[in-house]
């Protein structure tokens, strides 16, 4: 069964303009039991593991076939150009804040970063890495920002849960977070708590996109 499904799934993932979500795959192959489809996908991924210049990745909530990163320099030669334009430190840090605290207002981002960030948010909006997901119901009704699917795609994340976790971060910093601070009497939630992150992501999903929120459960 799975042997018959595999070529179809491969063709679909190959041709899909965006990473192909399992949900879409199930819908396209709705005459087949979902577990058969899932099994065929797993088998296909295993094939690509062993396979040559291409790989199958899970990114932005779907599957995609792309070249292996080790072959980057060869492919780059084909295009006689350098890689995509990199983001500035400002933009990366602002994105990090939005990613972990979404949905969040511009003022809240500036507060955390200690600098005015409106210009950077403009850049991120234009590059479709963040989006406006609504307004906060406070005085002034400021816009609430969240990350986009393009954000996940650009950073090779399968979903928001795939964001680097606090332990990895502490490691990168070479520091320990004292428990007094981690669990401190702060009224402000610490950003990298999984609970906070989940809630944030769930809420944002519920506002903009019911399907998406459901998928994450």
């Amino acid at each position: 069964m799975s042997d018959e499904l595999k070529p179809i799934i491969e063709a679909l993932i190959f041709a899909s303009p965006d990473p192909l979500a399992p949900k879409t795959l199930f819908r396209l192959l709705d005459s087949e039991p979902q577990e058969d489809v899932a099994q065929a996908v797993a088998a296909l991924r295993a094939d690509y593991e062993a396979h040559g210049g291409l790989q199958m990745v899970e990114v932005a909530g779907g599957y995609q076939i792309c070249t292996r990163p080790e072959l980057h320099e060869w492919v780059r030669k084909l295009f006689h150009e350098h890689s995509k334009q990199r983001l500035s430190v400002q933009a990366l840090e602002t994105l990090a804040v939005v990613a972990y605290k979404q949905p969040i207002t511009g003022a809240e981002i500036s507060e955390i970063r200690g600098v005015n960030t409106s210009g950077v948010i403009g850049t991120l909006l234009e590059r479709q890495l963040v989006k406006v997901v609504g307004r906060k119901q406070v005085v002034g009704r400021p816009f609430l920002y969240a990350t986009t699917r393009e954000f996940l795609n650009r950073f090779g994340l399968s979903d928001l849960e795939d964001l680097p976790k606090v332990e990895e971060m502490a490691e990168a910093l070479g520091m320990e977070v004292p428990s007094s601070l981690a669990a401190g009497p702060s009224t402000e939630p610490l950003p990298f708590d999984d609970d906070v992150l989940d809630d944030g992501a769930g809420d944002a999903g519920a506002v903009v996109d019911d399907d998406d929120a459901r998928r994450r459960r």
Partner: protein
Amino acid sequence: MSEPQHHGSDFESVLEEYPVKLENFEGPLDLLLHLIRKHEVDIYDIPIALITHQYLDYLDVMKELDLDLAGDFLVMAATLIHIKARMLVPRLEEEAEESHDPEDPREALVRRLIEHQRYKAAAELLHERETVRSAQWGLPEERLGDLAGEPFERELEVDLFGLLQAFQSVLKRARERPTFRLPSAEVSIETRTRELLQRLENIDACGFEDLFDKDRGRGELVTTFLAVLEMIRLNLIRVFQSASFGPIRVYRCDRPDDAPPPFGDPAHEAPDDMVGAAGAETDD
């Protein structure tokens, strides 16, 4: 098997490559973290007097260098001075504020610094992911049309900003769209004919397109074109083209005696073949 020269450079030194320049502090928190690191002090027990002093010195240097001193830096200076003051009179403060903030006055700042540091670390990790991801090449956009078997139009993930942007671009296009008007009564074909003849008076010949260079808008262009046809019919000008799609030249010629009567002459309705005959001569 030889490899391209830059191979690997993007991966192995991601952290080194991360474009942090400590000299260019993004904000006051960056500057504070720098000072804390530089003096190797414990972030959880900041010698506030020393750090405040250093911070203010730095601001002076920035002023001297005439760097754009953002207000954010000044706000932080005020915060530091405030904390320093509270450290000097801890007892009084505590009583005044009751149990509202029995903690170290530095705590809120420390929490911000730690949080800021975490986001910097998160940004670095994101940068690392971005580097790997940008080395994975997907199927080129150009190929999607082939695969779809029909013209492919990419769909975008849209937000409020996108909605507003789309509306603005529609309005912009609406404003720029040319308005269609028939030749207006303001400049008649006769008037234009006279103007063109006057221009040709001194130069004898010119390029066909040159006749239109003063025209604004479709209406005027049409008026001029009709005037040119009329002038051809009246044998006032001759029009030549050197080759198919080659440049068209317009020559003035003196009006012969047997020329047809002018356009709009009430005694003589414009003949049906006017446009056709003239067109044949301009075409090709």
